[in-house]
C-alpha cells in the first residue's frame, strides 16, 4: 500500500510541475498566478518528499515485494545502509535527484524576494518543466515502486558491497545537489534571454546560486574521489573514468561561470558569454546523467544498461539543450556591450581563467567521446588514458597558477605596473624554493618543482594581499572567499604533483612474521585472522608499521571481505592517514604456505588534493555571504515595503 502511495505522490508532483510550468510561461505577470506557481513549487517538493519517504519505508521494513528493494537490500543489511540503499541503485537515486530538485526550487522561491515577480515566476516555470522531465523519466522508465507479485522473494539480493560505506551515504546527495543546483543559473539565463534583460543585479543574484551549486559539486566530486581511494583498493584517487569525467565537465563549466559572472556583475561585460556558460554548465550535468544512465559507456559506476532510458534522456537532452541554445543563438546578440579594459586588469585575467576552463572542458569532452566516435567509425575499441589527459592538464594547470599569482593585486579596468613589484618579489622567493625542491626530489622532475614553486608564488601573493587588506580594514567576505578558493587550488595542485610522482608502490609476497621496508618504515606482517561482520565474513591481515628503530608502532588491518548475500568479495584497504603522507595496505590473493600477495603504497600529500578541493568549496560559500548581497536583499525589501504602503 505504502509504495503505491509513493507512486501516486510522485505522479501528483509531476502534475504540479506541469501546472507551475504552464503558469510560469503563459501568465508570469498575473499576481494570482504568481502565487499559484509558488504554492505549486511547495507541492512539488512535498509530494517528492512523500514519494521518497515511501521508498525509504519499504527499505527499512524489508518489503521485498518491491522489486527495487529486493534488488538492492537484504534483511541482514545494517539499518543505516538500508536507508542509504534507497539511492544505491538507478531508480532510487533518480528519486533522490527529484527530491533535491524540489528542494532547490523551494529554496529559490523562499529567496526570490530580490527580483521582479514575473521574472521569478518565469524561472519557476522553467525549473518546473525540467522537474516534469525528471519525474516522467522516473515514472515511465525507472519506477522504483514496481512490485514483484506474486513472485515475492524471501530475501533481497543485497546492496552492492562497494556501496556499503559512509562515502556512498553522502557522495550522491552532494553530487546531485551540485548537478541539479546548476539548473537555477540555467533557468535564470533562459529567462534573461526571453526577457532580453541582463544586468548587475541579475549577475549578483545568479552568482549566489551558482556559487552554492558549485560548492556542492566540488564537495561531491571530492568525496567520490576519496571514496574511490579507500574503497576500490587500487590506491588511486582519480581514474579519468568516463563517469568521473561526467562530473568534472559541469564542474569546469561552472568554475568558468563563477568567474565570468563576477565580470558581468562588476563591469557589465562578458554578458552573452556568461549566459552561454550558464546553459553549458547545466547541459553537462544532463550529459553526465545521460552518460552514466544510458550505458553508452560502461564503467564501475553505471547502475544499469537500459536502451529505453538512454533514448529518453537523449530526447530530453535534445529538447532542453537544443532549445536553450537555439534561444541563445536568436537572442544573445541583444546583450552585447562593448567595454574596454587593459591587459593588466582583472577582466583580462578572468578571461584567461575562462579560456583555460573551456579548453580543459574540451579536452575532457574529447577524451570521453573520442572512444565512442572511434568505435562508430572503425568498429574497434580504444581507450584514452591518463597520458592523454596529463599532456593537457599539466601545462594548463601550471599556466593557471601563473595567472592566479597576479590576481590579488589587479584592479578592474587597468592596474599600474608598479604594483607588480611585490608579485615579482614573491616570484623570486618561490623560484629559489622551487630550485631547492627540485634538488630534493627523487626522481627529479622539473615540472613537479615548477608546480610547487608556482603554487607557493600564488600562496605568497594571496596571503600578502590578505594581510594588507586586513590592516587597511577592508576585507569583504568575497575577497576572503576568493583567497581561500585560490589557496585551495594551489594546495590541491601541490598535492596532485607530489602524490602522482613521489608515491612508492610495491606488490610483494609476504609470509607471516616477514618484514619489508616501505619509504623508511618497517612493515611487519603478523598474519591473517578471520573476523565476522554483520553481513560479511572477512579475512583480516594484521600489519605493524614501525620506524626503522622499531618505535612508533601503528597497526593496520586491511580486510578481504566476502558478503554473505551476494557472495561478492571486496577488498577493504588499511590506511594510516596523515597530513603529510598516507600508508596504504591492501590484501591481494592468498598464496601457498600462509603467504599473501600484498599491495603496499606510500602516498605523500595525497590528502592535500581533497583538503585543497574542500577549501575551494568553502571559499565559494563564504563569498556568497559578502555584504553587498545582504545590502541588495535589504534594498529590495525596503522598496517592496514602500510599494505596499503607497
Amino acid at each position, binding site marked *: 500500500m505504502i509504495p503505491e502511495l509513493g507512486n501516486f505522490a510522485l505522479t501528483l508532483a509531476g502534475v504540479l510541475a506541469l501546472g507551475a510550468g504552464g503558469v510560469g510561461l503563459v501568465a508570469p505577470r498575473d499576481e494570482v498566478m504568481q502565487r499559484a506557481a509558488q504554492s505549486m513549487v511547495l507541492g512539488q517538493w512535498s509530494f517528492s518528499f512523500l514519494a521518497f519517504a515511501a521508498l525509504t519505508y519499504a527499505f527499512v521494513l524489508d518489503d521485498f515485494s518491491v522489486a527495487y528493494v529486493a534488488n538492492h537490500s537484504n534483511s541482514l543489511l545494517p539499518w543505516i545502509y538500508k536507508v542509504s540503499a534507497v539511492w544505491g541503485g538507478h531508480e532510487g537515486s533518480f528519486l533522490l535527484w527529484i527530491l533535491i530538485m524540489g528542494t532547490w526550487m523551494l529554496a529559490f522561491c523562499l529567496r526570490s524576494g530580490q527580483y521582479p515577480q514575473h521574472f521569478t515566476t518565469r524561472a519557476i516555470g522553467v525549473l518546473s518543466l525540467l522537474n516534469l522531465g525528471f519525474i516522467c523519466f522516473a515514472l515511465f522508465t525507472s519506477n522504483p515502486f514496481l512490485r514483484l507479485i506474486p513472485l515475492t522473494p524471501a530475501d533481497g539480493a543485497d546492496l552492492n558491497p562497494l556501496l556499503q560505506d559512509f562515502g556512498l551515504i553522502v557522495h550522491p546527495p552532494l553530487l546531485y545537489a551540485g548537478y541539479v543546483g546548476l539548473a537555477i543559473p540555467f533557468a535564470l539565463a533562459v529567462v534573461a534571454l526571453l526577457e532580453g534583460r541582463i544586468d548587475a543585479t541579475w549577475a549578483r543574484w545568479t552568482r549566489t546560486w551558482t556559487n552554492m551549486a558549485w560548492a556542492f559539486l566540488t564537495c561531491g566530486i571530492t568525496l567520490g574521489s576519496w571514496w574511490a581511494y579507500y574503497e576500490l583498493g587500487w590506491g588511486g584517487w582519480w581514474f579519468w573514468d568516463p563517469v568521473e569525467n561526467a562530473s568534472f565537465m559541469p564542474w569546469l563549466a561552472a568554475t568558468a561561470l563563477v568567474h565570468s559572472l563576477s565580470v558581468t556583475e562588476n563591469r557589465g561585460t562578458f554578458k552573452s558569454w556568461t549566459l552561454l556558460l550558464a546553459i553549458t554548465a547545466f547541459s553537462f550535468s544532463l550529459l553526465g546523467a545521460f552518460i552514466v544512465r544510458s550505458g553508452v559507456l560502461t564503467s564501475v559506476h553505471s547502475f544499469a544498461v537500459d536502451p529505453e532510458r538512454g533514448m529518453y534522456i537523449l530526447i530530453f537532452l535534445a529538447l532542453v539543450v537544443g532549445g536553450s541554445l537555439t534561444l541563445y543563438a536568436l537572442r544573445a546578440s541583444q546583450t552585447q556591450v562593448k567595454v574596454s579594459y587593459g591587459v593588466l586588469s582583472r577582466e583580462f585575467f578572468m578571461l584567461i581563467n575562462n579560456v583555460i576552463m573551456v579548453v580543459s572542458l574540451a579536452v575532457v569532452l574529447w577524451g570521453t567521446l573520442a572512444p*565512442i566516435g572511434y568505435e562508430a567509425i572503425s568498429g574497434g575499441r580504444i581507450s584514452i588514458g591518463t597520458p592523454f589527459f596529463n599532456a593537457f592538464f599539466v601545462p594548463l594547470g601550471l599556466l593557471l597558477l601563473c595567472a592566479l599569482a597576479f590576481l590579488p593585486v589587479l584592479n578592474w579596468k587597468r592596474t599600474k605596473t608598479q604594483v607588480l613589484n611585490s608579485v615579482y618579489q614573491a616570484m623570486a622567493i618561490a623560484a629559489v624554493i622551487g630550485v631547492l625542491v627540485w634538488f630534493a626530489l627523487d626522481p627529479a622532475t622539473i615540472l613537479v618543482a615548477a608546480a610547487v614553486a608556482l603554487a607557493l608564488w600564488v600562496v605568497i601573493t594571496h596571503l600578502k594581499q590578505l594581510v594588507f587588506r586586513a590592516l587597511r580594514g577592508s576585507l569583504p567576505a568575497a575577497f576572503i572567499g576568493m583567497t581561500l578558493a585560490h589557496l585551495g587550488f594551489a594546495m590541491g595542485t601541490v598535492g596532485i604533483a607530489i602524490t602522482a610522482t613521489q608515491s612508492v608502490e610495491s606488490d610483494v609476497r609476504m609470509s607471516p612474521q616477514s618484514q619489508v621496508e616501505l619509504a623508511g618504515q618497517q612493515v611487519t606482517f603478523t598474519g591473517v585472522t578471520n573476523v565476522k561482520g554483520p553481513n560479511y565474513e572477512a579475512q583480516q591481515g594484521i600489519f605493524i608499521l614501525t620506524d626503522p628503530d622499531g618505535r612508533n608502532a601503528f597497526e593496520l588491518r586491511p580486510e578481504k571481505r566476502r558478503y554473505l548475500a551476494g557472495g561478492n568479495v571486496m577488498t577493504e584497504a588499511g590506511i594510516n592517514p596523515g597530513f603529510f603522507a598516507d600508508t596504504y595496505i591492501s590484501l591481494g590473493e592468498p598464496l601457498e604456505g600462509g603467504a599473501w600477495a600484498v599491495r603496499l603504497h606510500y602516498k605523500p600529500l595525497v590528502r592535500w588534493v581533497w583538503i585543497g578541493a574542500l577549501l575551494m568549496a568553502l571559499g565559494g560559500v563564504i563569498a556568497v555571504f559578502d555584504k553587498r548581497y545582504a545590502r541588495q536583499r535589504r534594498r529590495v525589501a525596503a522598496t517592496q515595503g514602500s510599494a505596499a504602503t503607497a
Partner: protein
Amino acid sequence: MSRASLYIPLGVFVLILGLGYVGFDLGARNELPSALIDKPFPEFQARLLDAPDQTLSREDLLGRPALVNVWATWCPTCLSEHAQLMQISAATDVVIVGVNYKDRPDKAKQWLAQYGNPYDWVLDDRDGLLGIEMGVYGAPETFLLNAKGEVVYKRVGDINPRIWRDELAPRLRQLGIVMTMDNTDTGAD
C-alpha cells in the same frame, strides 16, 4: 562576436548529440562480457543435489556441448525461465547442468518436484563457491560450453523465447545439437 557565431554552440551540441546517438546505438548491441568467454570453464568438483555422495567435475562435461544454468528457488526470474528450460530439455539432446546457487537443498528438491526437472544433473552450490569461480553476477545465468569445455556464450538474465531464438538456438545448432522439433521457435507462446 558576430551574430552568426552565436550559432556555434548549437552546432557543437548537435554534433555531440549525434555522436551520443551513434554511441548509444553501439552500446545497445553490447552483450555483458564475461572474462570466461572463449576460455575453459573453470575446474570444479561439486556434489549432486539428489546424491550428495557423488560429485561432478569438469571432465564430466567434456565430449559434447553443455548448458550450465545457475538458478535458485529464491530467484523469481529463474521460475519465469523455467518453462523455457523444460522445452529446451524436451526438444534437444543438449546436456543441461543446473547449478543450484546459494539455496537450501530441501527447497530445491521440492521446487524441481513441483515444476519439473529440465536438468541432467543438478549441482549443490549452497555456499556459492562454484558461483564465484564462474564469475556469477546473480541468478539466473547461463553458460554454453562446447565439447572441449570452453565457454562460447554467456547469458546474464533469463532465457526467454527471444534469447532462445536469436542467441542460443543458432549457437546450439552450430555446435551440432539436434533439434527434434520442426521449429526452433519453441517459446512463441
